[in-house]
């Protein structure tokens, strides 16, 4: 187990490095840099731009250096927690993003839990009741969740929740709790506001999860050992829980690798619509104004969230299934 752990961590390092390089390249893609946008903005407001000041800023932020040097600076900073400087906010990135990263993490975690809690019973039910009306109904419902664009679902649910439960529109808590210390009331308010984003972000992932669990369980249920168990007179529920379900759980956990990027993607757009104080809206704004360090940190964080999530799912798999651990993770 230990060697597997080491092996898995060693794989993660080049992956993260590659991701950081890719992220940096993407940030650099737009023609021009933040300063050019900044100058254009100043000029459009009729203000004079002092070339000496611009030159100073350029040197200060290393924008004149070759790209590889800029990348090295950026990566070196990342390693000890310095995420660079946001031109837009004139503050270090780490100061602006702290809360947002945490909230993104909370929302993602809540969504993962939601997905599992909803998908598991439904998947098992529709596999054991294959071709029944409830199976068709649930499958169709899942497809519908897959097909409806997240943002629209968010808008409609937001409206309905406001209309029928009186929950304020947008944000992650009632307006009166903003900028107050944490209390029971504030926590409850946050939990109430988490419901809509969790459900909306979770729908697509849940639908996919139900389909995969159903397919896996159906495969297992056809196997001979199930027939044997039934012939020996095992009670149906015990038979289901003890053998085929455990076998089909395997992909259920490894699926988190597909699930996480999906959830993170979903959370970006949903939080823009619902103006949640997570990474989404700020990432969008940063991309629009080419605030490269800010956008880069967000991209990097989101990617890291998924890479680490996959790492955890791999570990969980290794704990659950000795076959994977013994192969050292090399085969798939």
């Amino acid at each position, binding site marked *: 187990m230990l060697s597997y752990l080491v092996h898995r961590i060693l794989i993660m390092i080049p*992956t993260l490095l590659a991701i950081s390089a890719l992220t940096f390249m993407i940030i650099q893609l737009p023609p021009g840099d933040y300063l050019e946008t900044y100058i254009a903005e100043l000029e459009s407001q009729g203000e004079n731009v002092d070339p000496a000041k611009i030159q100073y800023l350029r040197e200060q932020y290393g924008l004149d250096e070759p790209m590889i040097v800029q990348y090295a600076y950026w990566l070196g900073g990342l390693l000890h927690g310095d995420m660079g400087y946001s031109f837009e906010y004139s503050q270090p990135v780490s100061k602006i993003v702290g809360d947002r990263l945490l909230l993104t993490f909370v929302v993602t975690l809540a969504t993962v839990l939601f997905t599992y809690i909803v998908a598991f019973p439904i998947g098992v039910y529709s596999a054991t009741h294959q071709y029944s009306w409830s199976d068709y109904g649930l499958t169709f419902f899942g*497809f519908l969740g897959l097909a409806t*664009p997240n*943002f629209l679902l968010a808008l*409609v649910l937001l409206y309905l929740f406001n209309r029928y439960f009186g929950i304020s529109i947008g944000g992650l808590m009632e307006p009166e709790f903003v900028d107050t210390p944490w209390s029971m009331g504030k926590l409850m308010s946050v939990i109430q506001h988490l419901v809509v984003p969790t459900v909306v972000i979770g729908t697509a992932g849940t639908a996919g999860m139900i389909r995969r669990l159903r397919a896996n369980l159906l495969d297992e249920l056809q196997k001979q050992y199930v027939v044997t168990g039934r012939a020996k007179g095992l009670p149906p529920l015990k038979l289901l829980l003890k053998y085929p379900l455990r076998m089909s759980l395997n992909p259920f956990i490894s699926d988190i690798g597909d699930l996480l990027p999906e959830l993170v*993607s979903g959370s970006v757009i949903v939080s823009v619509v619902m103006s949640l104080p997570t990474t989404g809206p700020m990432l969008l704004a940063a991309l629009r104004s080419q605030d490269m360090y800010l956008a880069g940190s967000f991209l990097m964080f989101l990617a890291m969230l998924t890479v680490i999530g996959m790492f955890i799912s791999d570990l969980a798999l290794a704990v659950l299934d000795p076959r994977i651990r013994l192969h050292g993770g090399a085969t798939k």
Partner: protein
Amino acid sequence: MTAPTAPQGRLPHYVSTAPFDPYSVELMTAEQERYFLASQWKMMWWKLKRHRLAVISGAILLVMYTSILFSEMIAPYNLHSRFTDFVYAPPQPVHLFHEGKFEGPFVYAFHYSLDMDNLQRIYTPLDGETLPPDMTQAPPAELHKLRFFCRGDAYEYLGLIDGSFHLVCPARDGTLFLMGTDRLGRDMLSRIIQGTRISLTVGLIGVTISFLLGITIGGFAGYYGGWVDIIVQRVIEVLRSLPELPLWLALSAALPVNWSPTLIYFGITVILGLLDWTGLARAVRSKLLSLREEDFCTAAQLMGASPSRIIGRHLLPSFMSHLIASATLRIPAMILGETALSFLGLGLRPPITSWGVLLNEAQNINVVVLYPWLMLPVLPVVIMVLAFNFFGDGLRDAADPYK
């Protein structure tokens, strides 16, 4: 057991004079023959036909894709026809009967009034009963009968041929807003129908790009193995661990601002395709890894065929149908992706109109409350995504030789 009794005397030597066909035992009925000699694609079609939901979905897809050839004619209005008197008008339902009398399909004309308290536009259908808020007595009904196969807004078909033929037009001097109008008074239905052209081709072009990339990259990785394979595997792993939407956002934000909308359109499709090939490449790779060990592959190698010929001519065709089915399942993700990008304002830009661009106007919670019909473009999105999913599923099942 008693031994069989010997025949009484010798039997005469007998030889049948009927013509003898040594293969008669192997003869198949016409039906069997048809089945065993059928091509791969024919068998797929037979299997697909049994999957009723897939066939229906396929029909819907066919209709939708055919419609993009004739968008201008199907839509009652032009893409940019504006009716400044009818801003944010609600949908006009089609009626057949007026006061119990059959009148043919028609809509009631709108009476416009402005609620001065909250500055809300109020459109009252003139059906002879509903009372407009600024009147004391219901005005007489005003019927606008639909015209079919008629001359209406002039357009340039495919930018080449001038035409004014429409499938359905409003009554002369009348209006026909079956799905309401937007903030500039443009007919939503016409815009949805003409947005279909962009929305559906985005997915198609994107999938083509990702298909080509996936086959080429996956093909070489699987065929050569070794370090090519290792690098490709790593790249795929990195790309797969990146969340799609933020990456799409970042890339489309990187598209130069001064590009024309058409160029942006192609840029977006390329972006959608560029990040999507990984799944396909993995499928191709794992198949090729086992197929390249087959004898027919060695034979081709010994005869001096080039790697690309072996991959393209001998290896890929053996699971092409399966690949196409998987590619079909990727199209809805692209349609949704374009919708999301345009919705966030980083995708396609007006005057190019797609479902996502239309939904961009429904970004606000006010819309949900006041003008819910602006959310109608979501309907074709859902229908298309569902149809592609069901059709792709059916296709995949049909392409699987073991089912």
